[in-house]
């Protein structure tokens, strides 16, 4: 009996076998599999916490889509996630690791806020255009710091871009508690409220804003660039085969600068849109970690700008669902961050299936030798 069990255990083993070429089917299927796994494990976690798993999952993933009010809320959250996510998708595609989008978002918001705070009397549509431009410029310039450090000194861009997030947040904190504090604000760490042309045009009952259109257009334009232009081809080549890219005359240095400027600019724009849209002023906290969640959005969207749109909506649901579940079932809203981390985890895991296939192999030793040994 014992011998039989030993044989059963030893005779087959699950291994990864490299596919001759990457699987197109799996490329589409793996994010879906990751979502299913996240939902299943999420249900188990709810059960472990003593909450009804099905109710909790319904509240988390379905309930946000059942009323127009919460659908609007989902779209408002998806806006910045998509805008930052498409920039990061291009970055990661080119094997450039900008993980400081949260900081670029913050600096973009600060730069754009110069106009309503310092030139509050300038009320014209051009003021809004200038704010949008300044926001993108601020994010791009801030993102060029790690790019410059990488290309000039060879410093790892992951560490520098991340360190700059902390610095940017402290900078914002200083501005809203110091020079830019609203003098009539009862000493709260907030800037003056933006008014008139310093706010984005709104639709409907006043939460859907112009920024959502910007996100959609950015995603479509980047999709077109990646698919139909030389630049898109260059990004793909440099990212997947740097040596081939070098032989083709594509400059790695320029690519780093381009990717950081693009993703930083979009993150800065997202930051400005947040403060000139849903928030309407500067405050110490302007983003519930959009810059980091957008990393997950980029990967879940297969680093493809169109995929990023869907991924952004899904991650936005996770924010709204997390809030709902906190109210209905009394579960900490931290569950959102955990779901998001878990999702990225499973995406990476399932992506293995694109390049490899699972295969049971027999590890049974040669019959004659086993007979001899036993």
């Amino acid at each position, binding site marked *: 009996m014992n011998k039989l069990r030993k044989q059963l255990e030893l005779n087959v083993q699950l*291994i*990864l076998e*490299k596919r001759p070429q990457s699987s197109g089917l799996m490329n589409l299927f793996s994010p879906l599999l990751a979502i299913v796994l996240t939902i299943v494990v999420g249900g188990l976690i709810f059960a472990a916490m003593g909450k009804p798993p099905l109710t909790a999952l319904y509240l988390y993933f379905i309930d946000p889509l059942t009323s127009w009010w919460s659908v609007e809320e989902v779209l408002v959250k998806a806006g910045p996630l998509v805008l930052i996510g498409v920039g990061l998708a291009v970055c*990661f595609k080119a094997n450039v*690791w900008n*993980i400081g989008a949260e900081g670029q978002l913050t600096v973009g918001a600060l730069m754009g806020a110069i106009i309503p705070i310092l030139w509050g009397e300038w009320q014209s549509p051009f003021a809004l255009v200038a704010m949008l431009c300044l926001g993108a410029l601020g994010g791009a310039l801030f993102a060029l710091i790690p790019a410059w*450090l990488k290309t000039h*000194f*060879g*410093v*790892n861009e*992951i*560490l*520098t871009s*991340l*360190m*700059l997030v*902390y*610095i940017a947040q*402290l*900078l914002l*904190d*200083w501005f809203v*508690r*110091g020079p830019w504090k609203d003098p009539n604000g009862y000493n709260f760490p907030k800037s003056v409220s933006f008014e008139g042309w310093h706010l984005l045009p709104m639709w409907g009952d006043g939460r859907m804003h112009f920024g959502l259109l910007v996100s959609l257009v950015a995603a479509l334009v980047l999709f077109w660039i990646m698919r139909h232009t030389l630049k898109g081809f260059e990004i793909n080549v440099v990212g997947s085969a740097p040596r081939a890219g070098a032989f083709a005359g594509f400059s790695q240095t320029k690519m780093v600068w381009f990717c950081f400027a693009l993703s930083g600019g979009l993150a800065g724009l997202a930051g400005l849109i947040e403060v000139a849209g849903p928030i309407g002023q500067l405050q110490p906290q302007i983003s519930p970690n959009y810059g*980091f969640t957008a*990393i*997950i959005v980029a*990967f879940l969207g297969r680093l493809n700008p169109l995929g990023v749109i869907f991924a952004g909506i899904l991650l936005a649901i996770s924010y709204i669902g997390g809030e709902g579940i906190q109210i209905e079932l009394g579960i*900490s809203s*931290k*569950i*959102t*961050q*955990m*779901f*998001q*981390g*878990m999702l*990225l*985890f499973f995406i*990476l*895991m399932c*992506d*293995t299936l694109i*390049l*490899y296939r699972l295969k049971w192999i027999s590890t049974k030793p040669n019959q004659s030798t086993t007979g001899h040994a036993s």
Partner: protein
Amino acid sequence: MSPYEAILLTIITASTPLLLAAIGELVVERSGVLNLGIEGMMVMGAVCGFAAAHVTGSAWLGVIAATFAGIATSLLFGLLTQTLMTNQVATGLAITLLGLGLSGLIGSGFVGLPGVKLANVSIPWLSDLPYVGRLIFGQDPLVYVSIALTAAVAYTLNHTRMGLIIRAVGQNHASAHALGYRVVAVRYACIAFGGATSGLAGAYLSLVYTPQWIENMTAGRGWIALALVVFSTWLPGRLAAGAYLFGGVWILGLYAQGMGVGIPSQLLSSLPYVATILALVIISTNRRLSLINTPASLGQGFVPDR
């Protein structure tokens, strides 16, 4: 206690979590693996350590729980990068995000509760020596653990067969495999060691540095530890020096704030992050110094051919 003694003591307390987390990552990177998940492993250690200590009332059980939490989190990283061959950079980020979320969820019931502080070592007579007594003989036990670990890692890497194997795996995994070393197993072991020390570093924060649970209490220390490993050019001695230097910068900012220097507190709080960037620039400018010890297989997965 004289003021200089007090400052030195706080510098050591600020440096120890950095040193603990970085010494483990140094071993991980020497074996050719880049684990960017330190922040996640550390914060898991911090919350599990705090929870275990709060529930049992024993700080030492907290330390043990934190170590195992760190190991468990690191093995998730190992499973993905070593067995499933995922991208190490992305997986490290996933570990950090997952760790920050999960720790917040576990810790949501522990916010504001009183913690248990790991008691300082006290040796009769020696700890009461003037000037050096507290400094050398009266620290908390984890300070000695961090120093002993650093010495042990330095010795193991340079003078033992095990260290040679780890370095071989990190320099050229194909050759190490051809020589018959089990590359993936060695890397798993190193990753688990890195997880254990990161867990300890987290325990240090929630059981010694500020004995309570605060969300995201690691505050980027995991990332600074990663930078320290680069700064040290993968040498344990230089790593320890770097850790104390950074602890010094951290404390300098806090003291200057306390003394009410006319500098915005935010500027002082950003000092450690600015210093990290500067340190990376200085070390990277010196190509000879930075490349000579860089493990050649760093960040590359290894699929053994069967």
